[in-house]
C-alpha cells in the first residue's frame, strides 16, 4: 500500500493518524474540574504546582507523575487513586512517619500488566542516593505465579536526569516462561510503597554466532529458525556478551561512520550505544562477512519475522564477537554480572 505514495497520500495519512491518536489517546469524557488559578504572582512551578495543596495538608506525596516522559508502572494497587489538580490519577499521599526518613521517589520500568521476555529485569529509578539498601531489600518481596522467589537488587549510577541511582532486580536465572511476576516494595526508610506486576512470555533466546554469521533462535526449546547475519566490521565490532531487547521501533533513523539513513525497518534495540537488530536490504554479505557499524544486519523478511516473534525482554547472546563486553549500564546488561557479584549490590551495598 505504500508503494508510489504521493504527497496527497502522506497528507491524508497524517490527518488519519492524528485523528486516531486523538480519539484513542485523549478520551472525550476525561474532563477534570476547572483549575483554580493562582490569584497573585506566578503559579508554583513543576511538581510543586500540584504538590502545593497537598503539602499544605502536611503530607509527603509519593511522586508518580512525571514530566520526564516515562510511563511508570509503579502503581499502588488496592488503594483508591485520587485525582490531582490537573485531573490525572496520582498516587495517594504517604504519611512521613519519621522526621529523618526521606522517602525517595522510586519508579519502575516494567509497565503494569504488560508481557515481557524472560530476560527482563525490573528497573527502578531512585531520586536520591542512599548509603545502604538494607531497608529496601527487607521491604522487597517477589512472587512468581503466587509463590515467593529470591530476587536481588543491584545498583548503579543512572543517566536519567533527576534519578542518580538505578536499581535492577532479578533472579539468579531468567524468569520462568509464561508466569505472572509480582514485585512489592513495602513502605520503608528509603521509598514509599510500590508494586509492579507483569507477565512473561515464552523463553525466547537468540544466539548470534559470529564465526558462522548466523543467528539461532529458540522459543520454549522449539526452533524459530536460523538466520544469516552480518555484524560489525573489525573497526566497529559488535559488543560481546548477553544483551536484552530494550525497545522496538517499526522504522528508525541510524547514523554511523560514513552513514546516515532513515526508514530502517524492524529495529529492535540492544544497547544504548545503538546496536540493533535491523532489516538491511542493502547488505549483500549476510551470512558471509561482517560489514556493519555494529548492528546485527538481517534480510528484510527475517527482520520482520523476528520483529513479530521477539519482544522486549527477550535475550540475545553474542558469545564470540570481538567488541567490548556488554556492561549492565550499556542497556540491559544484567546477565553479564555473575550472581555472586550481583548479590553484593554494586554501587550500594545490600548486605
Amino acid at each position: 500500500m505504500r508503494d508510489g505514495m504521493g504527497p496527497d497520500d502522506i497528507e491524508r495519512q497524517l490527518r488519519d493518524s492524528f485523528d486516531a491518536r486523538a480519539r484513542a489517546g485523549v478520551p472525550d469524557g476525561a474532563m477534570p474540574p476547572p483549575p483554580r488559578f493562582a490569584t497573585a504572582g506566578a503559579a508554583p512551578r513543576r511538581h510543586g504546582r500540584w504538590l502545593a495543596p497537598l503539602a499544605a495538608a502536611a503530607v509527603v506525596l509519593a511522586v508518580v507523575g512525571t514530566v520526564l516522559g516515562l510511563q511508570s508502572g509503579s502503581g499502588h494497587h488496592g488503594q483508591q487513586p485520587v485525582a490531582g489538580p490537573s485531573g490525572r490519577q496520582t498516587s495517594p499521599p504517604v504519611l512521613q512517619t519519621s522526621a529523618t526518613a526521606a522517602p525517595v521517589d522510586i519508579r519502575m520500568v516494567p509497565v503494569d500488566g504488560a508481557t515481557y521476555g524472560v530476560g527482563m529485569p525490573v528497573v527502578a529509578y531512585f531520586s536520591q542516593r542512599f548509603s545502604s539498601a538494607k531497608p529496601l531489600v527487607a521491604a522487597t518481596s517477589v512472587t512468581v505465579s503466587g509463590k515467593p522467589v529470591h530476587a536481588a537488587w543491584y545498583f548503579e549510577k543512572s543517566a536519567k536526569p533527576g534519578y542518580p541511582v538505578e536499581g535492577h532486580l532479578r533472579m539468579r536465572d531468567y524468569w520462568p516462561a509464561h508466569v505472572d511476576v509480582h514485585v512489592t516494595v513495602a513502605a520503608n526508610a528509603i521509598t514509599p510503597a510500590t508494586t509492579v506486576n507483569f507477565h512473561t512470555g515464552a523463553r525466547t533466546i537468540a544466539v548470534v554466532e559470529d564465526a558462522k554469521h548466523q543467528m539461532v533462535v529458540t522459543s520454549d526449546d522449539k526452533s524459530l529458525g536460523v538466520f544469516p547475519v552480518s555484524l560489525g566490521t573489525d573497526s566497529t565490532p559488535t559488543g560481546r556478551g548477553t544483551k536484552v531487547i530494550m525497545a522496538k521501533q517499526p522504522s528508525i533513523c541510524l547514523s554511523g561512520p560514513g552513514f546516515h539513513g532513515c526508514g530502517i525497518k524492524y529495529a529492535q534495540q540492544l544497547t544504548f550505544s545503538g546496536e540493533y537488530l535491523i532489516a538491511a536490504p542493502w547488505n549483500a554479505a549476510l551470512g558471509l562477512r561482517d560489514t556493519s557499524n555494529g548492528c546485527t544486519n538481517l534480510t528484510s523478511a527475517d527482520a520482520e519475522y523476528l520483529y513479530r516473534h521477539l519482544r522486549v525482554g527477550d535475550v540475545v547472546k553474542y558469545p564470540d564477537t570481538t567488541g567490548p563486553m556488554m556492561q549492565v549500564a550499556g542497556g540491559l546488561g544484567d546477565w553479564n554480572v555473575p550472581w555472586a557479584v550481583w548479590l553484593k549490590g554494586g554501587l550500594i551495598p545490600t548486605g
Partner: protein
Amino acid sequence: MARTGDADAAVAALFQAQRLPMVRLARLLVDDLETAEDVVQDAFSALHRKWGSITSHDAAIGYLRTSVVNGSRSVLRRRRTARAHPWPDATKWSADSADSGLLVAEEHREVLAALRQLPTRQREVIVLRYWSELPEAEIAAALGISVGAVKSSASRGREAIAALLGGMS
C-alpha cells in the same frame, strides 16, 4: 473583554471549551498524556495571568496555542537530554501494546513513530497543519517564524515521514 475581575469566569469558560483540543494538540507534540495535561494546565495558568492584555476570543485561543507549542518545545528540550537514555521510548512502546483499550492501529502507530523522529520545528508545523488545520499564516504567527519557513518545514517534514514509512524506497 479584558477586566481582571472577569478573568476567573472567562478562563474557566475557555477551559471547558478548549481544554480537550489543546490537550490533543499537546499530545501530538510531546507523546504522553500526563505531560500534555501539564503543558495545557500551564498554558491556561499563563492565560489567566495575562488576561488583562488579551483583547479578543481569537487572541485568547491564539495565546493558548502558542503557549502549548512553546511549553511542549521546552519539555522536548529537557527530554532530549533524557533521550540519551532511551527508556521512555521502550516503555511507551510496551504501554501502547499493553493498553488494549487505547490501541492505535499499527499503521497509525508507524506514522506517529515517524513524527517523533522529526526535528522539533518540523514536527510543530506538521501537527499545526494537519491536526489543527491552521493556514500557513497562522502557523507562522503561532511559531513566530516566516511563512516561507513554514512552507519549507512542512515540505521537509512530509518528505522525512514518507522516507520513514518506506514510501520512497
